[in-house]
């Protein structure tokens, strides 16, 4: 276990509330099951630029449908930076990166009228920082035990969280972290048909946590595409709501247009026969395509640096 600095903030989130709180680079956010079996929805933003927020699909594509201890949580694809390192996460904390967040209409359709829901709880929490309900984004859901079948149907099963379970998130950048107790708790297996409180701790940075952050930065930053808003061709945040085209706008697509370079490769009889066999098997539509695919597959297998969602 990585030693953190002293406890800086402690609070209890009663059902069905949440709190937006700064968690700075090197600090650790601890989310604790006060009684157990309570789903926690989580949003997060770059504290200095709210348009950079937690990228749930980016995190999913870099890790898996569930994240676990040792995984990195990433910001949205437009920025693509590591945001948190999951320092601690028990097996009983099933995570979900598919469900987004529950919202009021979901429950009204089911006959409950206006029911508590994470969209509204998150919106109420981030309002303290002048963010709007439209700024709520898909959640990283913790202690949300969802499953899916072979044709992609998605469903929730019993919450496995135990009293005292906790998750530690090490902040890699300055963040506004927004944990909330899930509002669907009393009408499904998400929290086993009842609401429970969640305890929140924020620990100061320590030498060890800062060393870990520096290690993440060294390995996972500095790549093309890890941009700030200053790198954007259009970087002013639009203030009005109506969308109108800019007649003077000229898009700049990356590496556009794609050009092709042909290489003439002498091939022996035996290799040609094998390439033709691969064409027959469907790897490509002709020998040239099979060779191109072969070269790229070889590179991916033998030389491509690790794609790296997982950190430790």
């Amino acid at each position, binding site marked *: 276990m990585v030693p953190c600095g002293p406890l800086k903030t402690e609070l209890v989130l009663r059902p069905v509330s949440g709190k937006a709180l700064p968690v700075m680079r090197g600090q650790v956010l601890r989310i604790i099951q006060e009684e157990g079996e309570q789903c926690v929805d989580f949003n997060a933003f770059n504290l200095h630029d709210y348009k950079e927020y937690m990228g749930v699909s980016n995190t999913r594509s870099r890790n898996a449908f569930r994240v676990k201890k040792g995984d990195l949580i990433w910001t949205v694809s437009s920025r693509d930076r590591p945001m948190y390192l999951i320092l601690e996460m028990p097996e009983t904390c099933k995570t979900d990166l598919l469900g987004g967040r529950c919202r009021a209409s979901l429950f009204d359709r089911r006959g409950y009228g206006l029911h508590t829901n994470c969209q509204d709880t998150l919106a109420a929490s981030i309002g303290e920082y002048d963010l709007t309900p439209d700024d709520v984004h898909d959640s990283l859901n913790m202690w949300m035990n969802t499953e899916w079948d072979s044709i992609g149907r998605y469903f929730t099963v019993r919450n496995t969280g135990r009293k005292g379970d906790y998750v530690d998130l090490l902040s890699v950048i300055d963040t506004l972290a927004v944990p909330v107790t899930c509002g669907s708790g009393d009408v499904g297996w998400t929290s086993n048909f009842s609401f429970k409180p969640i305890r929140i701790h924020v620990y100061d940075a320590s030498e060890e946590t800062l060393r870990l952050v520096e290690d993440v930065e060294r390995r996972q930053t500095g790549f093309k595409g890890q941009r700030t808003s200053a790198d954007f061709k259009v970087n002013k945040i639009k203030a009005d709501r109506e969308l109108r085209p800019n007649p003077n706008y000229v898009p700049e697509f990356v590496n556009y247009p794609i050009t092709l370079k042909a290489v003439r*490769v002498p091939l022996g009889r035996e290799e040609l026969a094998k390439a033709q066999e691969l064409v027959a098997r469907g790897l490509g539509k002709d020998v*040239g395509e099979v060779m191109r695919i072969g070269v790229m597959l070889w590179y991916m297998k033998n030389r491509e640096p690790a794609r790296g969602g997982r950190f430790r």
Partner: protein
Amino acid sequence: MVSADRPSDEKQTVEVTFSQQQYVVLEKLRAEGQLGKTDAEIICRIFREFLEQEGL
């Protein structure tokens, strides 16, 4: 595609096309110098290794 010209050593010339983004890989490997000096040599060598790794 397989071209009609057939050198005396029974080799056939195959044209392999790469996008400029795929070609970055060949440039890198050429700079390393371990797999050959020319694009054709490198592609040939890699394709042979690929076949071997695929058990063909």
